[in-house]
């Protein structure tokens, strides 16, 4: 994988709270990655276009509105349609435990809630990158049950 990982932090849906997304963006920058933050209220189509244009290795989706069960699978579906199977998707925000297995099965590789430390995030990014280097499936459209947490 490249020396510089490119990570997009995106806010799909209608909630207007991005303190968490900004903190995550900052933490990943401090871990040495190139982080692109999309700003609030992006549609799935806009997020996918951003992933394509920016040649992202990772896509982090922050949702606090409760629409994660719809929006996150929708984005992954569009990514796969656009030939972006290899992009590694993770999620954060308020995502209840009961919703997580379904999201993992759709291709999300980690879900971070409140209280996550920046070290945990970095560890996830490192292990997922390691899988990529070893040619193990890890992208959102690649066939694997692997997920970080």
């Amino acid at each position, binding site marked *: 994988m490249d020396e*510089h990982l490119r990570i997009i932090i995106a806010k799909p849906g209608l909630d207007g709270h991005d303190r968490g997304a900004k903190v995550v*963006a*900052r933490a*990943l*920058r401090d871990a040495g*990655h*190139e982080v692109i933050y*999309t700003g609030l209220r992006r549609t799935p189509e*806009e997020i996918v276009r951003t992933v394509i*244009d920016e040649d992202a290795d990772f896509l982090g989706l922050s949702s606090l509105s409760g629409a994660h069960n719809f929006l996150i699978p929708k984005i992954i579906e569009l990514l796969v349609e656009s030939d972006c199977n290899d992009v590694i998707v993770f999620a954060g925000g308020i995502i209840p435990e009961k919703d997580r297995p379904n999201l993992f099965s759709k291709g999300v590789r980690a879900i971070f809630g409140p209280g996550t430390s920046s070290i945990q995030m970095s560890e996830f990014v490192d292990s997922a990158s390691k899988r990529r280097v070893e040619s193990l499936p890890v992208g959102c459209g690649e066939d694997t049950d692997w997920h970080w947490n």
Partner: protein
Amino acid sequence: MDFTKLKQGDRRALSKTISLVENGELNSADISNIFSDIELAEVWAITGSPGVGKSCICEHIIDNWLNSNQKIAVLAVDPSSPLSGGALLGDRIRINNSDNSDNLYFRSLATRGQSGAIPSNIIDIVHLLSALKFEKILIETVGAGQAEVRVAAVSKFLLLVEAPDSGDMLQAEKAGLMELADIILVNKSDLERANEKEEQLKLALKLSEHEIPPVLMVSAKEKTGFEELFVEMMKMPQKSRSQSLKSRISLSYAWESLLWKHKDIDTIIEKLDSKDITLDEALNHLKGG
């Protein structure tokens, strides 16, 4: 490498290829080998101190170009952290139309440790975009300091953005960029002191021996003054100012790009850090290799 998809105009292939250029694995010469005839796109750079409103002005320029159905590319540059090597690329937050048109390709670039307002491979990226028949390219630079005139080197036209209270009159005069700007914008014209700024700039320019660029008042917030800007921008391809100065800067910029691409650059910097070699020895080595 297979460049079939790239040649067909595939967006993802373009992004992947830009990454190759960014990582120094592909340069202008390689691109010229892939594409036969390359005509340089109309390249605009927009620069100015942090906070003067470059991104918001970009948004209006992009809208104007999109409305006339042109294929455009935007390269938004932000600094890499000198400590971690990471970067926070946030121009998409302020440029709201960055992701909603197929006619617009928008790419954020980090400076990746090179000094100055633009990464050294940006010339090659511009070359690639030109090969793919992008008609207009807009480069938004890091809020360039007064001596950072290299933005002029890669662009054909330079927009310099000023704002009321962004430094006193003397600072305006000593800024090298003023002599290279094709158009100077005073943003935030809705603020009280904007007229004063305009007067100061015009006065400073009058003292210069060069031809004077237009100074325009705009307000990105109120969206006023942009019609005049677009008219000036349309006129620009017929005239270009300060050409020899630009050529000189282009040359020194290209020279510096070579320096950063030198295979031994990292070892030389290490040796300089540990004082194993002198600056002269380092220079000689770089010139020899």
